[in-house]
């Protein structure tokens, strides 16, 4: 009996469509969010993350409508975010059917937002998203979809966010995002050992071995990927079977 490592497909959503970029740029259309969500739900995904990558004020209503359409398809947890600036933004996403909300840029600007959200909705509903680039032996968080350097240290920021109320960390390596060169296991291990909450590794997933490495060397609690699932490079079932055979506890669908 043990807690399973989670496999989480991610839907990057822009204008009601799923898109995917490489190193946070060069977007391609990947399909309808509700259709993809239904497929992943059926295929044994443990959870789904959807991010509003346009994160524009105009796009807000469209995104919430997409959250509603996706939530209808699921009987697994849904995390949604992108451009969450206020308590009301968070509430809107949760009311639309998400179980958890991710915060990134706004929490860097005003860390108290994490406490306010956690007080209102519980720490289990608050996911801090950190996008980082490697700087020698440490990692620097970037905001606004990888555009702005913060000058902070990823491990310090992660620890602070947890003390404020973040219940989970979604950790993305910008260097690896969409490159299919494997997760940054050093990064994930560093953050996972620093904080007391679960860490979701993101950026670079390609092979089954990448997932095995991030759950063992990388000490990740969950792993997130987009392209390889959207493009049906791998099925979730085959990935989980591979991991189970190597002793990684996963939830096998029956």
């Amino acid at each position, binding site marked *: 009996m043990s807690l*399973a490592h989670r496999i989480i497909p991610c839907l990057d959503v822009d204008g009601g469509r799923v898109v995917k970029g490489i190193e946070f740029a060069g977007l391609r259309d990947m399909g309808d969010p509700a259709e993809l969500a239904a497929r992943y739900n059926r295929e044994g995904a443990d959870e789904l993350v959807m991010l509003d990558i346009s994160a524009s004020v105009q796009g807000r209503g469209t995104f919430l409508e997409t959250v509603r359409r996706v939530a209808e398809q699921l009987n697994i947890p849904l995390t949604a975010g992108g451009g969450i600036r206020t308590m009301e933004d968070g509430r809107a996403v949760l009311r639309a059917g998400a179980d958890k909300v991710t915060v990134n840029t706004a929490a860097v600007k005003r860390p108290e937002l994490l406490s306010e959200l956690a007080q209102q909705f519980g720490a289990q509903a608050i996911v801090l998203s950190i996008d980082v680039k490697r700087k020698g032996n440490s990692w620097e968080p970037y905001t606004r979809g990888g555009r702005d350097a913060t000058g902070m240290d990823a491990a310090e920021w992660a620890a602070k966010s947890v003390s404020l109320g973040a219940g989970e960390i979604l950790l993305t390596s910008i260097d690896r995002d969409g490159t299919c060169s494997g997760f940054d296991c050093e990064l994930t291990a560093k953050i996972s050992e620093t904080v007391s909450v679960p860490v979701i590794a993101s950026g670079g997933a390609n092979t089954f071995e990448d997932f095995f490495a991030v759950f063992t060397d990388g000490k990740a609690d969950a792993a997130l990927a987009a392209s390889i699932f959207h493009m049906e490079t791998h099925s979730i079932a085959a990935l989980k079977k591979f991991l189970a055979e190597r002793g990684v506890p996963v939830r096998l669908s029956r």
Partner: protein
Amino acid sequence: MKIAIVDYGAGNLPSVERALHKLGAETERAVVPEQLDSAKAIVLPGVGHFAAFVDGLRERNLTSSLRAAFDAGKPMLGICLGLQAMFASSDEAPGDPGLGFFPEKVCALPTNVKSPHIGWNQLRLVRPSKLLRGIAEDAYFYFAHSYAAPASAEFTVAACDHGFPFAAVIERQNLAAVQFHPEKSGETGAQALRNFVESVR
């Protein structure tokens, strides 16, 4: 047959509602005590903070109706914080009494494990369960919580381990309560909800 879902002003109500509708159950959102009094069964869902939850129930005068329903043996299902609220108190809000159906205190998860306990975990059956009928013993359920009732609680039928053994499923006559989220636990969770809905019919 109508199932009243307690609406205390926050929480995971829509997903619980949707999951019950998919099973063909008729539900209503209960905001006043009379709705609980007239309901055939009651679902008490909940996420967030223990104090906000029990205060929300008190502000809406729902506490005594829940107590009466419990005493009368009305079918009831508590989910996550809904389970925790059925206990006497919680470490999360020491000054705020719970519903007190069960005498134990809800405790914080220890610091030697990751908290919140988020993700899919398995159960250990302590005694036969009505709610888990038809579900494989090694099935996984989705959990998301930082506090839990001790597995030693008298009416525990299934336990889970995360830092310490805690009550994952409680059953006492027509009452059931689960620490996991059946509405988020795939087909396995749907089966548990189906068992509850069928026990009401």
